[in-house]
């Protein structure tokens, strides 16, 4: 193809024939920016869980997983990335509780077939205190089997892997039964049903 100069227009040149620093428009087409172009502090990926699983849990005063359906999966692109995890866990005490019972929840990580492990944001060894990355709470005034308590919190982790990771949570109570995603009562003006939502965002370092 000939090179034609007409007035101030040149045609017939490929990108490689142009001055240094010239690029083709395909380099900036819609959708052309890939993850490897992003710098530190940018969000490389976002995953989410929007669970309709409804279950009860009565673990007593130990922490255990409520349901493996309450896990959000992410596969980090870089081993040194930080993961931001946001939880929205609505639950009901279902009745049968003492007013001063304590309930606890803490974020957990699973990698491969290994068991649950603590996140980087879990507390530090401090006497015989529980190490937590979440909540401890008591019932509020006048609670009953219609009430919603809600664990909504944001935490972070540095999993140091590029293998698939899952983020979920452990919970425990002093007694009674907890209802996850719904109230114990099914009728009445204040009974409710709500999804469990967990999101994960990988932040490049």
């Amino acid at each position, binding site marked *: 193809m000939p090179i034609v100069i007409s007035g*101030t*227009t*040149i045609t*017939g*040149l490929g*990108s490689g024939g*142009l*001055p*240094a*620093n*010239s*690029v*083709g*428009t395909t*380099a*900036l*087409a*819609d*959708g*052309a*920016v*890939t*993850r490897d*172009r992003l710098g530190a502090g940018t*969000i*490389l*990926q*976002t*995953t*989410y869980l*929007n669970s*309709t699983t409804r279950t009860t849990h009565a673990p007593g005063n130990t922490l255990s997983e409520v349901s493996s359906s309450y896990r959000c999966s992410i596969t980090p692109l870089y081993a040194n990335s930080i993961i931001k995890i*946001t939880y*929205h866990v*609505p639950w009901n005490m279902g009745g049968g509780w003492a007013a001063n019972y304590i309930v606890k929840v803490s974020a957990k990580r699973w990698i491969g077939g290994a068991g649950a492990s603590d996140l980087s944001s879990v507390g530090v060894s401090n006497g015989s205190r529980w190490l937590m990355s979440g909540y401890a709470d008591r019932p*509020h*005034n*006048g*609670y009953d089997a*219609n*009430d*919603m308590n*809600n664990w*909504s919190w*944001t935490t972070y982790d540095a999993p140091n892997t590029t293998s698939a990771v899952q983020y979920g949570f452990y919970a425990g109570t002093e007694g009674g039964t907890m209802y996850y*995603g*719904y*109230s114990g009562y*099914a*009728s009445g*003006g*204040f*009974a*409710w*049903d*709500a*999804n469990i*939502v967990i*999101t994960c*965002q990988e932040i490049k370092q």
Partner: protein
Amino acid sequence: MAVVIDGSAGTISGIGTDGFSAGTISSTSLAANSATGIKMGYAGAVVQTQVVNSTTRVTAASSNMTEISTSYRVSITPLFSNSVMLISYHIPTGWNTDWAANYVMRVSAKRFVGGTPQDISSVGVTNGSRTLVAGYHQRPGNSFDYNDMQVWAYQVIDLPNTTSAIQYGFYASQEGGTVYYGYSRDGNGSWGWDSNIVIMVQEIKQ
């Protein structure tokens, strides 16, 4: 300005970007701020973020779920119809002492399309006659008074399936009494407070 082709230096000068053949741009097109949301080419990318930081202060006294203020909406126009929206709420409220200790207060996220309220994707599923909620039910804490703050802070998701402009806000109600949005009823005591209502939405490419 003359067009100069310097074969020794391997450069062409004297012409603007528009003068090159179709499909060619200059390196300035890759300058800071040029990688806008539409350019993102991978699933999971945040392609835009919108926020409302509302200084509107209102009271409400409705026992039926209703919108508190249209000022408490954040607007977004999705770039892609299959995007997922992450919506974060921070709603500080003050409760009056005309409440009974066991009154329940409720809040649930809403999507507005053309002004019409709709449930979002995080709302619950049909389950007996339970109310479907994407938010909170809450009672006062112990010894609450008119300086206390109760905060609704949570994040939910939505799949609006549109590229038209939408808004995210919330409905709320209480069993009785008055709720103060963004401030305490008491304006003088050392525990009185004022705080903005903040709603943020992030569009996530799929």
